[in-house]
């Protein structure tokens, strides 16, 4: 089913493509319908006076957000970022170079808001805001996954993701929203999660999963929903309730909680960790979604909040939740607020509460994909860089064959999966495949060097994206795994028959 005829088979180390001007021109994801727009407080369709409104919005952003102005002013066009974007590497379209992407908006900002652009537009590359420009924005600001890789390498830390978010916010404010993100945000507001899974359906799903778990382990492991007075509320991406391999990760969390002996619950009101408000750069929408989590925590009377595996969700949780929905003075201050499931699991492993049979993962030769938002926009644990160490520590505790990909493509230099930032939609499939090709090249290299067969991830979007695009690169769909899926396979529950006939084999494995 390799339908990626023009997919660049990239070699490793990554080649920098020659410029192919216009290669991705005109790519236009579906527009949000008026009813989707309305739910988010945006005009339904392009306003007649869109130009004035867009400029007003730009002026407002310059007043509201320091990054917007500093980043637009400070770029020296040094070119250091030009080869850092996976969409540029995968498409060769020069407008996918981070600085060129910023320039699409910077040129307009200069024209209307700076002395040089007002009086010498040609000289500084300033241009009028026209309908063509607006459509160009719509196209190329939906070819950025807001992954921040460019920001790592820019001498001033200029983060194209911030510019993309600003551009999307401007477009939303004049009635030109993207269907995928905006429709989903609407669903969260109505029902509580991206999927539109109502509480009844959610309960039924969880009950089925509990049965499966009991069949598999012989132990009753619970997946509680809306249980008042539980200690921990788990907020996880709704993909964990139905998609593969996400769901196996959810089972992993449940087993860890079970073994740790803590009381926990999911919430049907806040049944979503994802917060697409981030993708469209809307503080107000992001805040509204985040406040659902606060309300759920208060209603359920929990003491702690733990987040499941999701990249941008963890960014919003770790970096923004306190800002958007804090202060969380009603929670137990002894624990991080919020805490990542991997912080929790690693803590239990260190305490020695979990027992593993690592050989259960011996059929796998594994590598790990650092998700952009976890890597470059958040942290785990107390030390900077804990977001790299803790997942790897947990993996090493449950899996014998682990190999890192090339260091230029991991940790803070990680390459995006190609589907983040609101681009995980079928109408952008071509872009998603091309954007994934640099990551796939690095994966192919460890496959060749170390026989790696599988790649673990801690992000719902990465998991969905990879299971969709990996077949085009010669991997099975199920080559992408949840980290807690590995935990789930290896964990030995108290009282569980190990299933192996060799009695007496120490099921403890080496717990790191």
């Amino acid at each position: 089913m390799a339908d990626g005829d023009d997919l660049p088979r990239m070699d490793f180390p990554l080649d920098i493509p020659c410029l192919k001007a216009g290669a991705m021109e005109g790519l236009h994801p579906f527009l949000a319908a008026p009813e989707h727009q309305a739910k988010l407080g945006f005009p339904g369709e392009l306003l007649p006076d869109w130009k004035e409104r867009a400029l007003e919005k730009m002026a407002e952003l310059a007043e509201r957000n320091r990054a917007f102005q500093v980043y637009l002013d400070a770029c020296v066009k040094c070119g250091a970022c030009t080869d850092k974007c996976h969409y540029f590497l995968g498409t060769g379209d020069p407008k996918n170079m981070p600085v060129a992407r910023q320039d699409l908006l910077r040129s307009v900002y200069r024209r209307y808001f700076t002395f040089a652009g007002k009086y010498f537009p040609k000289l500084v590359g300033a241009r009028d805001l026209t309908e063509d420009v607006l459509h160009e924005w719509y196209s190329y600001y939906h070819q950025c996954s807001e992954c921040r890789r460019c920001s790592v390498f820019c001498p001033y830390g200029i983060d194209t993701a911030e510019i993309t978010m600003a551009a999307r916010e401007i477009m939303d404010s004049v009635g030109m929203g993207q269907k995928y993100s905006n429709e989903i945000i609407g669903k969260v507001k109505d029902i509580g999660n991206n999927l539109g899974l109502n509480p009844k359906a959610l309960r039924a799903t969880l009950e089925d999963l509990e049965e499966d778990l009991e069949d598999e382990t012989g132990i009753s492991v619970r997946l509680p929903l809306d249980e008042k007075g539980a200690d921990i509320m788990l907020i996880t991406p709704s993909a964990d309730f139905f998609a593969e391999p996400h769901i196996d990760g959810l089972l992993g969390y449940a087993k860890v909680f079970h073994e740790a002996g803590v009381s926990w619950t999911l919430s049907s009101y806040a049944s979503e960790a994802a917060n697409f408000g981030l993708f469209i750069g809307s503080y107000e929408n992001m805040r509204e979604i985040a406040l659902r989590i606060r309300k759920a925590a208060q209603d359920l009377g929990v003491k702690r909040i733990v987040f499941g595996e999701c990249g941008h969700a963890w960014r919003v949780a770790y970096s923004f939740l306190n800002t958007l929905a804090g202060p969380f003075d009603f929670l137990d201050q002894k624990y991080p607020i919020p805490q990542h499931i991997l912080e929790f699991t690693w803590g239990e492993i260190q305490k020695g509460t979990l027992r593993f049979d690592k050989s259960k993962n011996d059929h796998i030769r594994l590598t790990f994909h650092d998700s952009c938002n976890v890597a470059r926009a958040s942290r785990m644990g107390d030390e900077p860089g804990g977001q790299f160490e803790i997942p790897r520590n947990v993996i090493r505790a449950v899996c014998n064959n682990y190999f890192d990909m090339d260091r230029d493509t991991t940790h803070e230099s990680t390459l995006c999966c190609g589907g983040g930032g609101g681009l995980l939609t079928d109408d952008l499939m071509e872009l998603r495949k091309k954007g994934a090709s640099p990551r796939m090249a690095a994966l192919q290299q460890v496959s060749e060097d170390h026989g790696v067969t599988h790649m673990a991830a801690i992000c719902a979007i990465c998991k969905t994206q990879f299971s969709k695009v990996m077949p085009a690169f010669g991997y099975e769909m199920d080559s992408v795994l949840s980290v807690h899926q590995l935990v789930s396979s290896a964990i030995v529950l108290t009282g569980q028959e190990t299933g192996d006939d060799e009695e007496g084999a120490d099921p403890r494995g080496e717990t790191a």
Partner: protein
Amino acid sequence: MLSASFAILFYAATAILVVGVAMKVVRYARVPAPLKIPTTPAPVTRAGVILRMFREVVFFESLYRSNKWIWLFGWTFHMGLWLVLIRHIRYFTYDVWWWVALAQPWGTYAGFAMLAGLLGLWARRFLVERIRYISNPSDHLMLALLVAIAGSGLMMRFVARPDIMSVKAFMLGLLRFRIEDLPAQPILLVHLGLVAVLMIVFPISKLLHAPGVFFSPSRNQIDNPRERRHLAPWAARLEG
């Protein structure tokens, strides 16, 4: 007449530079960063952030990781520029400070380093397709301006030395609001004129990267959002 025009030019250029940059800096400082967006891994303490910023502005750490050629040319140019600037302090003080004297022998080499760095950067604007694509006329003009300043400076050092003592007297006079005679030597006038132009365009050009880098939220924020609540004033009003 000549001396008077140059005096006025310099007063005007200084005023534009100082007021223009101050206005920008005040603006950068006043506009809040609504969210915590340091590029992680980021320091978890204020001291750590100061160290990160120090490594960025002194060693160009991120640029080094990013592209060795741009780093080499850019860093050489900037460090050369600092030494040259320090060397120029002697024209503005009666007694030459000891640390300025110390920089004296390096100053001239630094001039060449500066020029070499600039030419390297400029060559890349022509030779590297990606950088050619993102370059505007103003990017070339800025390099031309800096090359001309460095070139005319070096010419005065090695080819046509002006009467340095009168230049110094003119500068010292400016500081005391007295107009002394400026030697009417063409290269000197070109050099001084271009420096004034540089000062004037500073606040309206990409030279704002110099103050801007200190205000970049992805570099200057502390990674402590779980420990401390960060709230912009306009966002606090939403909580009503």
